[in-house]
Every structure is written in structure tokens, then in C-alpha cells.
């Protein structure tokens, strides 16, 4: 019996191997069938529009009749007619939009990171009612951007806004401030609303990192009686730095493409218009599909470079970690 089984086994094994590879091939085939619908949709709604946008940036396309578009090379970016430079790269309006966007991104991401860390540290502490506080913190995240823009637009209203009233009662300001209209404060108004809306996201990411930290080094620090602020900067911050970096990059990429908040809160005014706002203004309001697409392409390139840099840095860090 034993020898019989032994004699049979190669056949059995061989059979199973054939079966296995057939199964693998069948699975591979079905994998591509399963992937196909998603890939087709993604090609239709992402790859194709992106390529067309880049192409349109090299044409003089107009919204009223895009079929008459002609290829004009780099003229939308930079061109010289009778000794006069023209194009996006010499357009002060474009550079104004670039400056606004960068100014906004740096301020708002910095403040969000600091506030987000504070909120995360509070949520990481053990206290009664913690889940209620966490729920409350999530509220701004759940509110649509347009709604938060309108809500804050009302709170920041120059005549009837609650913020002016409170600040005046506290004698911080003597006269009402036209937050969203004034050139000096309009961008700050945008930052205030954006910080309010996105700090929850930041706090959640940092909280997730905090909760993965080992508790033993904290206990050691506690036993040694080290000042908690010192513990934060010497122990916690270095440990959560990778997660913090990811969160900052995410938020920065998001801030660089801001459009809706500025469009609604400050009506795309010159003091606050972003790169996305500029591109859409050219495209829709001025019907200049070519220039709008060129601006959109520049924004895309900026974001792509930052993404690639971030991914490379992340990968290097990952490699370092595994090497250690």
C-alpha cells in the first residue's frame, strides 16, 4: 500500500502543479478583466483630460469655439511681439496669484501643524469626555468648504459680524474691520477659515502617530521627573516626525490647489486669487482656454515636482529605517 501511494504521488503532485498554474493563469486573466473597467474610467476622467489640458495650453483655443484652436507653441507661456514680452511668465497677475498661493500655503499649513499637534496631544491624554471632544473636533471637517466659507463670511461681516463685535467688546480693535474686503486682512481671513476647516484632519493624523508610540520611554521620563515640555521636544517630536512630515506634505499639496474657499469668501479678489483661481478665471470668465490651460499646466508641474520630491525623501527615509 505504501509503495502504491508513493508511486501515485508524483502523478498527484504533477496534477496539482498543472492545476495550480492553470489556476494562476486564470486568476491573472481575471485580474486584468477586473482591472479593466477601473482603468478605462481612470483613463477617461484623468489621463485624457490632463493630456488635453496640457495640449490646449499650447494652442490659442477659445471657449466660444474650441474647434478653431491652433497650435502656437510656447506663446501662452512666453512670447515676443515687436520687442514686447507677453505670456504667463511675464504676467504680473499670474505672479500675483502664485505669490498669494504660496503665502497662503506657508501660513496656513504652519498654523495648522501647530494647532493640530496641540489638539492631538490633548486628545491623546486620558480624561473623561474625551470621545465627546473628539467628536466636536471632527465637526469642522464634516462641514462643506462652501458652507464654512459662508458661515465665516457672515461671522467676519464688517458691519454685523460677531467677530468684530466680540473684538470691540474686548477692546482689541476700536473700529470694525472689513476682514474679507481689506487688502491687508483678506488673505488672513482665508487663512483663518482654512485653518479652522483643516486642523481636524491634521490633528487626526498626528493623533494616529501619537497612539502608536511606545509608552515605556514616557514612563522612564516620568520617573526621572523630566519636564513634560522637554519630553515633548526631545522624545515625542522626533518620534512623530515622519508622520508629521506626511501630514504637512498632504496639506501643502492641498493648499497649493485651493480654489473654492477663496472664490466664495473673498470673491476671487486680486488680493487673494490663487493659481487655480487664475486658471479658472482665464478659462471661464475670459474664455481664454489656451492661457487657462497653460496656467493649469504650470500648477500641475509645480505640484508634480513637490510630490516627486516628497516621495523621494520618503523613500530615502524608508530605506534608512530598514537599513538601521
Amino acid at each position, binding site marked *: 500500500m505504501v509503495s502504491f501511494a508513493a508511486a501515485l504521488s508524483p502523478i498527484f503532485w504533477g496534477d496539482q502543479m498543472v492545476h495550480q498554474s492553470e489556476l494562476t493563469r486564470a486568476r491573472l486573466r481575471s*485580474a486584468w478583466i477586473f482591472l479593466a473597467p477601473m482603468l478605462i474610467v481612470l483613463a477617461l476622467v484623468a489621463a485624457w483630460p490632463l493630456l488635453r*489640458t496640457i495640449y490646449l495650453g499650447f494652442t490659442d483655443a477659445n471657449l466660444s469655439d474650441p474647434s478653431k484652436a491652433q497650435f502656437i507653441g510656447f506663446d501662452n507661456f512666453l512670447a515676443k511681439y515687436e520687442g514686447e514680452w507677453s505670456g504667463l511668465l511675464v504676467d504680473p497677475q499670474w505672479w500675483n496669484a502664485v505669490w498669494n498661493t504660496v503665502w497662503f500655503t506657508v501660513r496656513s499649513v504652519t498654523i495648522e501643524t501647530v494647532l493640530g499637534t496641540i489638539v492631538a496631544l490633548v486628545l491623546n491624554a486620558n480624561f473623561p469626555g474625551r470621545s465627546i471632544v473628539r467628536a466636536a473636533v*471632527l465637526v469642522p471637517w464634516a462641514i462643506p468648504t*462652501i*458652507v464654512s466659507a*459662508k*458661515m465665516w463670511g457672515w461671522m467676519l461681516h464688517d458691519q454685523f459680524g460677531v467677530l468684530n463685535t466680540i473684538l470691540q467688546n474686548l477692546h482689541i480693535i476700536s473700529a470694525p474691520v472689513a476682514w474679507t474686503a481689506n487688502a491687508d486682512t483678506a488673505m488672513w481671513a482665508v487663512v483663518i477659515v482654512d485653518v*479652522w476647516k483643516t486642523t481636524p484632519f491634521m490633528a487626526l493624523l498626528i493623533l494616529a502617530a501619537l497612539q502608536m508610540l511606545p509608552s515605556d520611554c514616557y514612563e522612564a521620563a516620568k520617573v526621572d521627573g523630566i519636564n513634560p515640555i522637554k519630553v515633548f521636544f526631545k522624545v515625542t517630536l522626533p518620534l512623530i516626525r515622519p508622520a508629521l512630515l506626511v501630514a504637512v506634505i498632504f496639506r501643502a499639496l492641498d493648499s497649493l490647489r485651493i480654489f473654492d474657499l477663496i472664490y466664495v469668501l473673498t470673491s476671487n479678489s486680486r488680493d487673494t486669487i490663487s493659481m487655480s483661481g487664475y486658471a479658472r478665471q482665464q478659462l471661464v470668465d475670459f474664455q481664454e482656454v489656451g492661457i487657462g490651460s497653460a496656467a*493649469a499646466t504650470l500648477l500641475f508641474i509645480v505640484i508634480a515636482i513637490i510630490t516627486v520630491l516628497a516621495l523621494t525623501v520618503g523613500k530615502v527615509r524608508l530605506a534608512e529605517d530598514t537599513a538601521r
Partner: protein
Amino acid sequence: MNPLKLLKAIGFWLLVVVIVVYAVFPFYYAILSSMRSGSALFQVVLLPEHFDFSNYIAVFAEQPFARNILNSVIVAVSVVAVSLFLGVTAAYALGRVSFRGRGALLLMILAVSMFPQVAVLSGMFELIRRLGLYNSLPGLILANLILTLPFTVWVLTTFMRELPKELEEAAFVDGASPWIVVRRVFLPLMWPALVTTGLLAFIAAWNEFLFALTFTLSNEQRTVPVAIALITGASQHELPWGNIMAASVIVTLPLVVLVLIFQRKIVAGLTAGAVKG
């Protein structure tokens, strides 16, 4: 308790109160304002005095706001359904089958989620006009997929990868086709992930503004965010703030309730999508 400890406790609770007030006050104030009309609206108060729902009635009377809500529901629900269907099938291939180019494909999908919306705006505009979908809900559904599909695929793939291998092997040995395996074996296990990604996709589609603003023309085709942004009064300088606040509360309340109910799932989904992606 020694004085220093007491001081610390007071400081901590003060911080908690400040955080909660900061987070909740703007929405609270919007609810408060939505129930005041006429000249009462222009007096700043911090506590409700009376409940006046005339703004809520006016929102529906002065514009097709019910239609806008219906539009938003249709768009968001369709986007969620399409994203989840495409996401589950793709996640099976990406999470369970190893084939050449899988890593590159995942990286490409991740790259799409980094696209600034405006970078596809003119190409999408052209596409939608060519397909005859300008100023229609199917056009918005199609456009919104670029926002929801990448992270749906990503999160579902991560989830599917974690499921034990024996599950499908047993089914395959029994002669089940991959489609049956996905439907009968994986789908029942994936409810938590589907709820999370579905909710995130719903919120993304519900809040979407740039496409909805650019690809619609008439008030009847607009979604809620565009409708709220374009509410105007008798003149440009006299915005009907009471109506705007009422509309804001109407569209936000269901969202806030959803988020509070599914708090844990959303937090898990957000951090998974971000930390791993």
C-alpha cells in the same frame, strides 16, 4: 491636590473648552443666525431667544433648493455606487493577485489623487461637451470620479490585502470563478471598508464645487454647494444672510450627524488613506 497640580488641571480643562468652542461655535452661530430674520439678524446675540423658521421656508420658496438637494443626492449616491463597484473589482486584482506592473499601477493611481482639479478642468470641459453632458447630472457624476476613484481603490486594496489567503483558496478548489469569489467570499467581509470609503466618497462628491460650478449653467442642474454660493439678494451688496445660513444648516446637519455616528470608521479610513497612501 497641591496648588501646582490644580493649576495644571485647570489649564488643561481650559484648553479643552477652548478647543471645543473653537470647533463648534461657527456652526452653532450659523444655526442661531438661521433662526433670526429681519432686523433681528443684525443684532449680535450668543443665545437663542426665539425660534423663527421663516428663513428655512424662504430658501425653498425663492429658488429650486429642493431640486438642488435632489441633484446633490443623485450625484453623490451615483458616484459612491460607481466608485465602490470599480473599487472592489480593482482591489481584488491589485490586492490578491500578483502580476507584473502592480506596483507601478498602484503608484499611478496614487498620482491621480494628487492631481490638482484645475489641471484637468479644460480637458474635462471639452470631454463633457463632446459627450453632450454639459449642464447635466451625468456630466458631474463622471467628473467627480476623478476625486473618489483613486482613494477608493487604494483603501479597498489595502483592506483586501490583509484578508487571509485560505479564504479564496478553499473557494477556488471548489471550482468557484473569481467573480463568485469576490461576490460571495470577499464582499461580505468588506462591509467595514465599504462603509468607510463609501462615506468618504459621499462627502467628497457632496462637497465638490469647482466642477459643479463650471459644468452647470442653469439653477435646476446645480448641486447644493453651487446653489449656496450663488444665493443673491436684491442687490449684490445685500446678501440674504438668513437664507444662506438656513441653507447651510440644512445641507450640513445630515453630514454632521453621519460623521458623528461613523466617527471611528471615518477616522480609521482617513488615517489609513493618508498614512499608507
